[in-house]
């Protein structure tokens, strides 16, 4: 199906600088959640004979953001597409060694990728002097051991080096000092999978695919109590309503829409009034949330929001690496408060505690973005569903539990 055509094209017809310009002009934004311009990110890698070597390209396949399953579809379904994109990216930054850092739990993907890498070597798309171009690229699959923190690019690099998966302070950026202290680029799987198509079909085509200022397509997902949860590749800029009603089939019978997290657990809630917001980076941000991974989690009216958020905070607290104080000590505190609320043991001052956590666990105050991400659903839940929290406190039990005795909401 035209596999590796883009590799042939870039190796034979384009210089690395030209590939970088192409990708920058395509306005491809990182699909891992941050949405940073991929081409701009690459431009910080030192190029030329004086640059430190070897340079590394890493595919971040550690998809562990709760509610996110889009990369899994790509990894299990079309690993060669990823490999092809990685070769293009590696060529652009003149990397000679590449890794796929894969989530431990994606066992099927591990098998498929191993097979695909082997096939690529056999076909001469990996290894030395690829297609006679003089460009060498090694590729290795590395499976993680199951920590969410490895999705953070600098923690991923530490884990890949065999160290503890603590993040690193930036600056210096991985482009200057990355894997083993060498220039490194870490890109999300979906981002890399866009590259072959951009190369093959050009800028106009790529721009034309989207409905918004952001370009290309996006793999969107919907989970929750909807009729047809799933994952679809759609033009960038589809609205929330379209996704929810046309693709996910709307809410299941007997359930009403209450709110959603547009891009995975670490994004802010949006509610009814936001249903017509396009799912692209800028629009969602203007609405007060983040596009993140673009996989929506729907909150229905029969699910306790406190329990919902407690589930998320339990995850974040457990996944904290423990390096910085606010995250390590703050998240378990938040979790314990939410559990107390859920059990009907909440007190009014607990809300004040939750409030100062959402105020102070912001970006820059903590060492990495895990805690700020954890605060997004909490902060927005307190904003939109504060009454529900207060009911737990005043009624001394969870209004969603069927009996007066406490039952877990998860």
């Amino acid at each position, binding site marked *: 199906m035209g596999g590796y055509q883009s590799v042939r094209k870039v190796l034979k017809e384009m210089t690395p600088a030209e590939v970088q310009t192409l990708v920058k002009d395509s306005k491809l934004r990182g699909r891992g959640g941050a949405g940073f311009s991929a081409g701009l990110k690459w431009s910080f890698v030192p190029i030329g004979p004086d640059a430190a070597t070897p340079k590394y390209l890493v595919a971040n396949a550690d998809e562990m953001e709760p509610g996110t399953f889009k990369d899994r579809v790509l990894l299990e379904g079309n690993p060669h597409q990823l490999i092809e994109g990685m070769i293009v990216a590696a060529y652009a930054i003149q990397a000679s060694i590449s890794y796929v850092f894969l989530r431990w739990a994606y066992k099927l993907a591990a098998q498929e990728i191993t097979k695909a890498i082997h096939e690529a070597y056999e076909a001469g798309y990996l290894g030395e002097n690829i297609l006679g171009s003089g460009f060498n690229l090694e590729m290795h699959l590395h499976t993680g051991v199951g920590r969410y923190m490895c999705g953070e690019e600098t923690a991923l690099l530490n884990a890949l080096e065999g160290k503890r998966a603590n993040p690193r302070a930036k600056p210096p950026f991985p482009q200057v000092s990355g894997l083993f202290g060498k220039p490194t680029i870490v890109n999300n799987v979906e981002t890399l999978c866009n590259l072959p198509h951009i190369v093959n079909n050009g800028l106009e085509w790529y721009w034309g695919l989207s409905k918004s200022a952001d370009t290309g397509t996006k793999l969107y997902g919907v989970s929750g109590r909807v009729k047809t949860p799933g994952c679809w590749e759609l033009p960038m800029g589809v609205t929330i309503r379209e996704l929810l009603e046309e693709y996910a089939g709307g809410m299941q019978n007997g359930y009403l829409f209450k709110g959603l997290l547009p891009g995975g657990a670490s994004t802010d809630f949006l509610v009814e009034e936001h249903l017509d917001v396009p799912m692209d980076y800028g629009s969602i941000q203007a609405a007060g949330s983040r596009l993140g991974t673009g996989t929506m989690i729907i909150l229905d009216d029969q699910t306790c929001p406190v329990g919902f958020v407690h589930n998320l905070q339990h995850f974040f607290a457990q996944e904290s690496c423990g390096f910085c*104080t606010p995250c390590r000590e703050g998240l378990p505190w938040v979790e314990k408060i939410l559990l107390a609320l859920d059990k009907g043991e909440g007190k009014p001052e607990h809300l004040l505690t939750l409030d100062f956590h959402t105020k102070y666990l912001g970006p820059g105050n903590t060492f990495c973005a895990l805690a700020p991400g954890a605060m997004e659903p909490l902060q927005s839940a307190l904003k939109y569903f504060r009454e529900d929290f207060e009911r737990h406190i005043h009624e001394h039990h969870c209004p969603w539990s069927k009996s007066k005795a406490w039952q877990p909401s998860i």
Partner: protein
Amino acid sequence: MATIYIDNKPYEVKAGKNLLEACLTLGMDVPYFCWHPAMGSVGACRQCAVKVYKDENDTKGKLFMSCMEPVRDNLRISIADLEAKEFRAHVIGWLMTNHPHDCAVCDEGGACHLQDMTVMSGHNYREYRFDKRTYINQYLGPFLNHEMNRCIQCYRCVRYYKDYAGGKDLDVFAAHNHLYFGRAEDGVLESEFSGNLAEVCPTGVFTDKTLKQHYTRKWDLTMAPSVCHHCSLGCNTVAGERYGTLRNITNRYNGEVNGYFLCDRGRFGYEFVNSAGRVRKPLVRSQLPEATDKYTALRAAASAIKAGRTIGIGSPRASLESNYVLRKLVGEENFYHGVSDTEHDLVDMALCILREGAARTPSLREVEKADAVFILGEDLTNTAPMLALAVRQAVRQQPLQESVAEAKIPVWQDAAVRELVQNDKGPLFIAHYTTTKLDELATKTYFDTPDAVARLGFAVANLIQPDSPEVGGLAGEQQALAQQIADALMAANNPLVISGTSSGNERVLKAAANIANALCAREKAAGIILTVPECNSMGLAMLGGHKLASAFEAVLNGYADTVIILENDLHRRAGAITLAKFLNSCKQIIVLDHLHNATTEKANILLPASTFSEADGTLINNEGRAQRFYQVYPTAEELQESWRWLAELGTIIADEQISNWHGYDDIVKAIAEEIPELSGVAATTPASDFRIAGQRIPREPHRFSGRTSMLANHNVNEPKPPTDPDSPLSYTMEGYRGQPPSSMIPFFWAPGWNSVQSTNKYQQEVGGHLKGGDPGVRLIEPAGKAPFSTAVPQNFIQIEGHLYMLPLHHTFGSEELSSHSPSVRERIPAPYVALNAADAVRMKLDEGQLLSFSIEGDRYQLPVKTSHAIPSGTAGLPCGLPGVQFAELPAWALLNRDIKWKKQPQTTF
């Protein structure tokens, strides 16, 4: 320089620093935990948050961690900003969610950085009402307690232990709020620098276990500035006392010598002072009862001296003053050094190299900056531990200067620097006859006999400067190595040669000197640093004196019949047979010492000499730095410094000069006047009459408690506190409360900073030199006129039926005084003899089997330990270990295979 604005006021700060360092240097109180001046910043704790503004119009600002923020011109920040203060208070609040309410029973209390930062942040009410996480503690050995519940996860312990000190067996485990700092399993911490964890840890997780045996709060201690007596480096310490017991030794910051750290021998070796084996009463053995009062003993000693022909044997572990007064008392021609002749020659040679050579001796801090190092014939970790620690930092220099500077990463960004550098190290070459702990850092190691090490050294010197003699018959491999070393030293900016007296081989020293002189001849800013055996070996050598063997001769041929032995167990200096003959020939033996030992047993008159914490004196370290140590607490009348005993004796026998001395200051003055090279000892500290605003410097913090009740069981009326005639310090808490001159700082404390972090307030800039300069006066600067030594040795040749015994050293066990400390004793290895592995196979000896041999007639039978490094035909004998009698090494040992004294365990052959 850069101008930064702190709360709208401009300040000049040094460029290249981080914001936290800059603020602390300005004297501002910014709280922190994970940053450490010796270890840089990692940004973990988030305690040091300040507001940073984009420009003068930005009123909101954003919180940044000051330890991670580089200083730049026109940076605008606020420390007092309400949000910053609130955030910093929350950080303490978060730490307090799990921190136990242990203050009242925690050893750290009163000197606890967490307490200080909690008060500083204003946090005072715990809102958290849920459970705290708890941990199981570990046994970590005799030096440190482990109380993990108190941990605030600042990562300082593992960063210090692994990254700074190179330790392997302490690490961080688990994740999120279950992080655990400890060993993989219970066990003695292996690093010789583990004790620093007690000061590096900002809470009470790691605390001094020896202090816990006799626990005292810091504010209740009587403290004085002291100098470690357990090796030749002269690290500065603070000694603390209460109720007449020496309680602990902590680090006394000296920006040139030890910096923030001490080795475990120096930190925990003090307990000999409290030993039951102390000599506490003068003994005159000719009478009964033997124990007597001071004046009877003095009279007996004076009449012995007057009646006889007296010689004096000085000591490398006694103060300069004690040795000097002894020399004055007996006369220069009758003053001998109480060291083996080998040691005497080697230390003299080391002194000569420092005086006459071209290269100067760097201080320990300067050693850290060396960017190429060659060590000849020294196992530094065991002979001068803190020098080994300095070399660990030195191997980081070259990568720091090259790649880090290129990548524009500030040196204080610790994690980023280490990530970029990975395992790159600057050049380090070690040539020795046994493995050392520094080998893992070395570019190349070379294991061979001392003479072969010397030959390699001479070859290196010759390659650098052809005027230095060539070495004939060098194998190709050695030639190539010599070239590699020469190239590395020549390519460096600050090449350093390290050697010392520990191998017992003169040629090694000469080769080292040749290399240093060769480098200087080639215009390199080279340094040479030499270890000598004991804390005042250098001082004794500079004082001058005759060899011990001639002391023995003097008595044996009737020239003398009375001997005064100063703080020395001669059984550690000479063979048993020789020594017995000498002691039996003496008519009168007068000994001054702290602990009972084999020599004091032979004394006719024994005078109790006070230990370092009970005495004033001066030591001269291997660098030639004279440093003053102070008495910490007053002692009983009959326990006094050796120099005071000897001066009183001199007064009684009406020695003209001695009789004119009225106190400590007069002795120091006399030394400075009589010996030009030692004139600097008068400048180490101000004289005893120094006062600040008419006040003395108090040895006790202002919160010292119990003074009026301490002696109430003797007399309810509080006695007049003792005064100190020998120094400007007072034995009370009354006195000048500001910062005294750096040589007289009895303890570090500042308002709001009760812990060791208060050291910041005493430094010119944080992590730098003390205000007014670091203590100590360097006495030797190289004259640069030494010719190249031509003493190139031949290769070692084995002798059938013999083994050439080489000295091996142990951090714990080789040094006399610290070995009497119970905690150190637990770490002393059992006696052994190290045999080359192939030799052991040929001799049909297994590990643990007994090897019998004799050296100069003295017999030994020791269990074998096999070594792959010690050269064939030689063997290693651990020096000073209890159970291993003295031998003047290196020496040939005759193997006695026929003697079967003990039942041999089953052999596999």
